[in-house]
């Protein structure tokens, strides 16, 4: 059997740049998507959290050193909410890409699929980060959410890892879904449980007060750990347990997603 010609290393960079640029242009063209990605968490922050401001006493839990308002508590969770919706929406767009054939064009490239999919994940993650920082700026303006300034830098890798994890989960889902219609159902069964059964809206001790099984469900949800990783990083702290779980989940789901897009599997699907 004839060996394929070796790939020029520059092609890797070229493909990464190409995929990043495409995602960026798509982002620029879909301004309404950017706005809706911001409106959703802002509604939670300004309307939902305002009602709970005094009703819900948040005790001092790490990484906080003193009492905080509910707005301050949910802001990191809402950052992750942006990443969650974006990760899933981008996967939705991949199903669309597949239906329209552009995904096939991408996957026909001589470069390894793993590389292409990682480029795709990275592109989705980087676009999400722009939206998260946009949200943080608005949260500061609207409700005075003020983490330490250096925290805006230290949170960057935590946000990136979280975005990759959620993108990988989305990618895996998109590899399993044939049609756009099916995806809507998955959104309901994946996004909402993932967001609500986590530490994004209430601290885990509060969940435990409500019910023991809910607490355990939150603890088993990798999204909870991603939220805690982001929360700690915003306050210049490293939560090692959250980092290990988020990184581990990212690795596992990326691997599964790559396997889902493997040529053998794609070929089997066609037959």
């Amino acid at each position, binding site marked *: 059997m004839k060996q394929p010609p070796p790939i020029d290393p520059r092609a890797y960079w070229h493909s990464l740049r190409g995929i990043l640029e495409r995602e960026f242009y798509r982002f620029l063209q879909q301004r309404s998507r950017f706005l809706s990605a911001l409106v959703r968490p802002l509604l939670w922050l300004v309307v939902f959290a305002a009602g709970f*401001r*005094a009703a819900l*006493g948040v005790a*001092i839990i790490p990484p906080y*050193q*003193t*009492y*905080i*308002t509910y707005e301050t508590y949910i802001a990191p969770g809402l950052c992750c909410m942006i990443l969650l919706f974006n990760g899933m929406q981008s996967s939705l767009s991949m199903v669309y890409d597949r239906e329209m054939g552009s995904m096939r064009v991408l996957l026909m490239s001589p470069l390894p699929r793993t590389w292409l999919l990682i480029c795709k994940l990275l592109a989705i993650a980087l676009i999400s980060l722009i939206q998260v920082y946009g949200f943080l700026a608005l949260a500061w303006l609207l409700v005075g959410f003020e983490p330490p300034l250096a925290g805006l830098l230290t949170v960057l890798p935590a946000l990136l890892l979280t975005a990759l994890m959620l993108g990988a989960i989305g990618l895996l889902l998109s590899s399993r879904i044939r049609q756009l219609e099916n995806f809507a159902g998955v959104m309901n069964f994946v996004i909402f449980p993932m967001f609500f059964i986590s530490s994004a809206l209430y601290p885990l001790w509060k969940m435990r007060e409500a019910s023991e099984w809910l607490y355990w469900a939150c603890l088993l949800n990798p999204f909870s750990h991603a939220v805690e990783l982001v929360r700690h990083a915003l306050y210049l702290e490293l939560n090692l347990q959250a980092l290990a779980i988020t990184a581990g989940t990212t690795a596992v789901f990326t691997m599964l997603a790559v396997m889902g897009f493997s040529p053998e599997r794609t070929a089997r699907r066609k037959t």
Partner: protein
Amino acid sequence: MTLRRTLISLACSLLLTPAAFAEVAYVSNEKDDTLSLIDLDSLEVIETIAVGQRPRGITLSKDGTRLYICASDSDTVQVMDVASHKIIASLPSGEDPEQFALHPNNKLLYIANEDDALVTVVDVDSHEVLAQIDVGVEPEGMAVSPDGKWAVNTSETTNMLHWIDTETHQLVDNTLVDQRPRHVEFSDDGSTLWASAEIGGTVSVVDVATRQISKKLTFQIRGVHPDKVQPVGVKLTSDGRYAFVALGPANHVAVVDAKTYEVLDYLLVGRRVWHLEFNADESKLLTTNGVSGDVSIIDVAALKVVKSVKVGRYPWGLAVKS
């Protein structure tokens, strides 16, 4: 040998210097019958000391060597030696002492006796009761003017400020304020007296020369029911810039511009914030939060709460030793 000893002692003194200069906050824990000591550098509790029953108001002598503690249920004012942390004397305070104020002469202690409607004046050196002055029902807050001329007491049920002439120990005037006045604080220049009214939800600024109210402050916190706004502790910066008001179960400290009387901000602290105290350079303001059992530390320059430190049950009074 002498050189070695000198070097060792020099090294020891160098090592001990930061600790020696560290400021320590004394916090009375009403339900634990203890004092918690907080190191104001590390912002951690470094020691807990058992004292008399139900310690509430505490204050340091002007030279910082003695700490006076109102042990309310022991019906005494205890005197603690700050260096050794030993109780060295008990002053005849009258029944149920709650708050007191030390005269600038470092000699006379004015003690409010809540159950007896009295203010007891005690000589802290001779341990003698010099006078007992009848005031309104349930006396609570006490303050002595910076020039030492006035001792002012608040009575919770009569709703008055009682002006006591410190030379004659006679009650010479009363000022009616809003319901349940709990605390009074003179400005550093002695021109105004700030009196909080817990049920009234106000702070009255009284002109000392005329003993009339010149301004009344009210507070509104977004998302907090007005009934929960119950002002208690008041503290004024010595530069006359800010006044801080502890708002009890509203769990906030109000920051007031002491010149324009405008409320600038509300800082979230622990539950049922009670009394306040500055450190020596007024860079930090400490609050006792009774229900949550902690002390919040406010960065005065940034007007931000930096940390809340767990202490005993129902922390009440504060004193800072520099």
